[in-house]
């Protein structure tokens, strides 16, 4: 009887521990993001990516459809090469889609916002996004504001 109680208590303990890990996975962390395995990638070249990081969201009209897979510097074009992994079901983006780096909130995280154009052809795997818009860099804005103030 004593051994039965041990087994019961230990079993409950182990299940509780695994349950806690499961809770951490599903409720606390972004493990669900790891599910978008079926993706295709497109690249975009930006003059300045600001504080964009890998795994940042990629959105259309604010709806998250993928994430930033890779950021590197292209030494031939002298621009930042950003690889976007977009879920395969979102295969309707026109060729002339525009990619812009936006900021969520005033000091929030940066993300890539896509704006579909009007082309009939759609973006395929390893295509390049033609039109890009860089991140707003606060220092540049302030600098421009200061020079405008000076010229008045």
């Amino acid at each position, binding site marked *: 009887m004593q051994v039965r109680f041990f087994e019961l208590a230990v079993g409950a303990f182990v299940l509780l521990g695994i349950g806690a890990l499961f809770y*951490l996975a599903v409720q*606390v962390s972004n493990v669900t993001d790891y599910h978008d395995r079926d993706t295709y990638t497109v690249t975009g070249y930006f003059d300045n990516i600001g504080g964009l990081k890998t795994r940042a969201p990629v959105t259309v009209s604010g709806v998250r459809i993928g994430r930033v897979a890779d950021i590197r510097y292209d030494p031939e074009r002298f621009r930042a090469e950003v690889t976007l992994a977009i879920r395969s079901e979102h295969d309707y983006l026109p060729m002339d889609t525009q990619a812009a780096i936006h900021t969520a909130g005033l000091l929030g995280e940066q993300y890539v916002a896509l704006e579909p154009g009007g082309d009939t052809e759609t973006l395929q795997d390893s295509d390049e996004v033609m039109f890009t818009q860089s991140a707003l860099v606060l220092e540049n804005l302030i600098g421009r504001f200061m020079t405008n103030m000076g010229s008045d």
Partner: protein
Amino acid sequence: MTDAIASVGRATINALVVFGRAFVFLMRVLASLDIVLRRFGLTLAEVYSVGVRSLLIIIVSGLFVGMVLAYQGYITLVNFGAAEALGGVVALSLVRELGPVVTALLFAGRAGSALTAELGLMKTTEQLSAMEMMAVNPYRRTFAPRFVAGFLSMPLLAAIFSAVGVMGGYLVGVGLLGVDSGAYFSQMQSVTDWNEDVLSGVIKSVVFGFVVTWIAVFQGFNAQPTSEGISRATTQTVVVASLAVLGLDFILTGLMFGAG
């Protein structure tokens, strides 16, 4: 002058001797791990006394640590108008640091000291020698199951601590301070990465479980067979294990989060 130098030398040699003994002891315990599979009941009983019976203190501490974190985080964040980020602050601090570290400290105090005292008393009352007389290997019968039990229990306890802490933070943050419930969890999910944060915390707790249990079992094995020796060994377990956990945590944090 020479006395002073000699005493430094003696202390160093003694420390090295203890460390060497601890290492040999660990090797012998690891070599007898097959008993865990052959007589699983022994380990089960130890998981009960080491893990299950630590559950209450872990849950209560986790709850309160989470609640206090939410309070303090809120006070700072609300100044920046960023009270919505509370979930992320609570979850990251718990999963990365407080979960593994506080659990390991509590574990050393609650389970480690008990292990040392139990084994020390077994040694003092010559139960270990009696086992050897009966051709029962005390490493297999006594040390290995306790070692495995501590090693297995620690990560589970740390996960429970973090999960309960997140709920405690929810109680205070959402229930008491009025942070939006959806924002609490969505912020949490957007800043907490499964691989980088949660798994790093789990790795930490595995390492801490290994070290704390090793120290506790070895201190019991190495205790002077007197009542004073047992008390000294028990104290040593808590002190050395706590320091080891804090030191290792610094190194592991540097390795895991420093480079990125």
